[in-house]
């Protein structure tokens, strides 16, 4: 449908959101991602029966962990959408981008940026 969405969104493909591990999400933030979201099939429509439900639980766990870390769980989201929901995909990409814009950069990246400026 070629609906425009912000170019800062980049996709990593997994066979099922059930494959997404907590450490994948954490390391994305550790490496400086400002936000991460998981786009899974609609609940009840998982091709692998329960993968997207597991993913949701893991996302919830990781959000709490990110809160504890101080990065902010709201930088991580789980969305469900179907392959026929092109507009929804674009809307989510925009929604997530706006959310991250409001939150500002990942504090780790911000801190590292500062440090580099000081030394550089």
């Amino acid at each position, binding site marked *: *449908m*070629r*609906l*425009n*969405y912000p*170019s*800062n969104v*980049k*996709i*990593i*493909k*997994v*066979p*099922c959101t*059930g*494959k*997404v*591990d*907590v*450490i*994948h999400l954490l*390391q*994305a933030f550790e*490496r*400086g*991602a400002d936000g991460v979201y998981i786009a899974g*099939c*609609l609940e*009840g*429509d998982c*091709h*692998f*029966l*329960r*993968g997207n439900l*597991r993913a949701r639980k*893991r996302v919830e766990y990781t959000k709490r962990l990110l809160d504890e870390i101080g990065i902010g769980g709201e930088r991580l989201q789980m969305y469900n959408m*179907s*392959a*026929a*929901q*092109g*507009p*929804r995909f*674009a809307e989510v990409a925009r929604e997530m981008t706006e959310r991250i814009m409001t939150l500002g950069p*990942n504090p*780790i*990246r911000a801190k*590292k940026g500062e440090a580099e400026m000081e030394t550089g």
Partner: protein
Amino acid sequence: MNKEEIKNPASDKKVGAVMVVGGGIAGIQASLDLANSGYYVYLVEKSPSIGGVMPQLDKTFPTNDCSMCILSPKLVECGRHFNIEILTNTQVEEVRGEAGNMEVSLIRSPRFVDEDKCVGCGVCAEKCPVKVKDRFNEGLGERKAIYIEYPQAIPLVYQIDRDHCRYFIKGKCRICEKLCKNEAVNFEDTEKRYALKVGSIILAPGFELFDPQLKGEYGYGVYDNVVTSKQFERILSASGPSMGHLERPGDKKEPKKIGFIQCVGSRDLQAGKGYCSSVCCMYAIKEAVVAKEHSGEVEPTIFFMDIRAHGKGFDDYYKRAKEEYGVRFIRCMVSKIVEMPRTKNLRVTYINEEGEPVEEEFDMMVLSGGLTPSEDAGALGKRLGIDLNQYGFCETSQFSPLSTSRAGIFVSGVFQGPKDIPETVAQASGSVACASGLLSESRGSMVKGKEYPLETEVKDISPRIGVFVCHCGINIGGVIDVPQVKGYAESLRDVVYAEEGLYVCSQDFQELMKKAISEHNLNRVVVASCSPRTHEPLFQETLRETGLNKYLFEMANIRDQCSWVHMRQKEDATEKARALVRMAVANARLIQPLEELSLEIKNKALVIGGGLSGMTAALSLADQGYEVYLVEKEAKLGGVLHDVYYTLEGDDVQSHLREIIERVEADPSIHIFKGTMVVDFSGYKGNFETGLMVGPGMFYRKLEHGIVIVATGGEEYKPVGEYMYGEDERVMTQLELEKRISNDTPEFSNVYSIVMIQCVGSRTEERPYCSRVCCSEAIKNSLKLKELNPNMNICILYRDIRSYGLMEEYYTLARKKGVKFIRYDLNSKPGITVKDGALKVDIKDPALGEDLSLSPDLIVLSSAIIPKENDELATLLKVPRTQEGFFLEAHMKLRPVDFGTDGMYVCGLAHSPKLISECISQAYAASARASTILSQERIHVGGVVATVNGDLCAACLTCVRVCPYDVPVINEEGFAEINMAKCQGCGSCASECPAKAIDLQHFRDEQILAKCNALLEEAV
């Protein structure tokens, strides 16, 4: 492929190819099953792409699955299958010859775009100046004069609409031709005629929606806001003309009050449609529910005569629509619709249940149009010389529901009679079994195989990556600076070669790619172009041809995920394309070749249950050339069919049953085990092992087989304690009545009055499902009794009469013969008493609001169909059941006879209540599905599956518990083992393993993290 060429195999043998006519879901399913069991398939479709009606639907009942999402994988598989040749824009003209050896003449109308050259990039349509009302969106949207029907269309080839193309009308334009860098546009294309040889034909030409303009009182075509149900599907669909925003066509306002009128062109003798279309009640309920989900403000109302929710899980859906979604149901006929001139709202006049005329205003009205065979299909039927019934549906019989009157030509889907998607799919598979039974001697004779060079060893060799960046005409190149991305790719570590191409997917570029692979010793290939969904197999094929393992391939989707969606931010898009290529290369470095293990298959079948369904499946498998073990718990074959004597249509059931039993018992390929129980079970598709206790001696026997069909059947519920059943011998069930009618006709000369009570034990709190056959059963026995004694007073107490499909005619006939139908509500069930030795039935007629008292001689209970005791078997086989105890298929819509576990199937009453003809269709379907495995010599397993590193495993059982398919087990050495043949590759176990001992191949943690790191390389 040169289509003019006639395939000409040795003429004394049957032809190992089948033609499927119609590319809807039935045709697609039939083609896939045929091609996957050793037949070459010509899939003939009159329109430019396959898919039929399903792509137009938004959701499907009763699961609310997205229609396109569930169909799409089948479309793609069909499109890329070696042994399916899709012939679009093509119609069958004539068939000559005999079953097994037929010659089919075809006419192909011009597409004006070369199928071999068009890559579906869409630049032509983007620039085409002509806009045309879009058939796919039911006239609610627009497309161009050069177009594809919908984005996922297969084949993904554009087509010029000759009637609207500016060049064809005015003689100039040809913009598309100029823009197409692949020179695919061909204005000189012409109609072509040619012939093909096939062994059998499966007809699946589908249906059309009744044209509601024929019902002038509803104002369709006059009032803007009266739409057809199919138009409403498009309005609801996220890919529809309003992008899924619920709005009425007249003024784009969001409608609040939406009315649905049922039976528009169904159950309507005046309109010449004496049958029920079977699906409209459910699709209307679904549309009402989905509309409600779109906006809580919506107030849907359904005007209906009877709600026919007779399928698996349907009544529950109906109940939820009423109770959870607040859909309003009004039992009435709408007499007319008038548009309010100012608001464009619609004033609807109807007679309510109390018999009073009511006028009510709606924002929008949806007409639930009936299903009618298409005119083309009718004409086709005539050309082929097959019998059609008065409505134009293909004539079939109850005991051979898939055979047309012409040998070798089979039928499936709505062309055989109105039905829903799962029944259509079951029939499609079923017709495959019929064709396959006819042609089994020629199985494999026409399929194409392919030889590949030996795979190059790459395991311990450092990566040498080649990157190919596609311009996709101007699709990518017009936005992204492709040369710059290519240059960037060259700069990345381990990349030894990079190239760009106008269309990387084109045939000549494949040659270039192969050359580059061998000249530069590439051992990993990255293509930066479009979607792997459509193009990965093509490139993987190229890799295999050069001797590279097909998994040594990675795609960066810089079109769908980049140039198309960041069209106006060219610099950002180029930057993103660089990142996507960087990620793909990072992954490519780590990709490992994956081995696929080839396992031998046990070409024998196990059928559990020796009733009609089990026997039919066994016979069909035997006809297809497989050995069958048929296990029956009872001492004789036949199951519940022993209690059925005649069908509604008048067939003699017992003689059919005797014939089937004789055939089964005489078939040397069928090994029958009567009085036998299944006691253990293990294995996976192609290699199962089952232990039996064989009666009467109860000795143990172990069987090896490749597939399992579960056909354990059902039985009539004995409603002891309800309606005095078991207390008074004058109260009996329908089957008991049928037996008495058949054995002792004179008895009924003294019976003057009979009351039948429907839904006994069905649609209740305890058994919320509809038993589907009881309405027709009651009508059948009423008609039989009326035959015996035309003056007999018969009264049927019902909740909804569900004489779906062509059975509606018998309902009409029964009323004509004076059978009385009186409705009751669940909360005021008929009361039965005995007074002075006479039976008395008290009932409140909700239509008249009056209390009635009847004094029948006999009371007949239309009792529910319940599954045969099957819980132990379900546990042994590890297959799921519904709450009611029927076996649960893998997918309600598109996998009606498959279990979730590969190689296991279900059919007949064990699946849900159904008619004899439906059991037979399903049994054939299970047989065809089984044949897709049994016909293979070996199966290939592995690839993207989870593997365990035993050294790291703690045997903690996490994987065992997490796996949705129960695949992992802890082996004798004490670590988890995942059977490659069973693993579905979802990766749930890998992401949950606390010891990190499991990896999902091709998506190993290392790879995902490498991609993640590459993406963020420049972030921190």
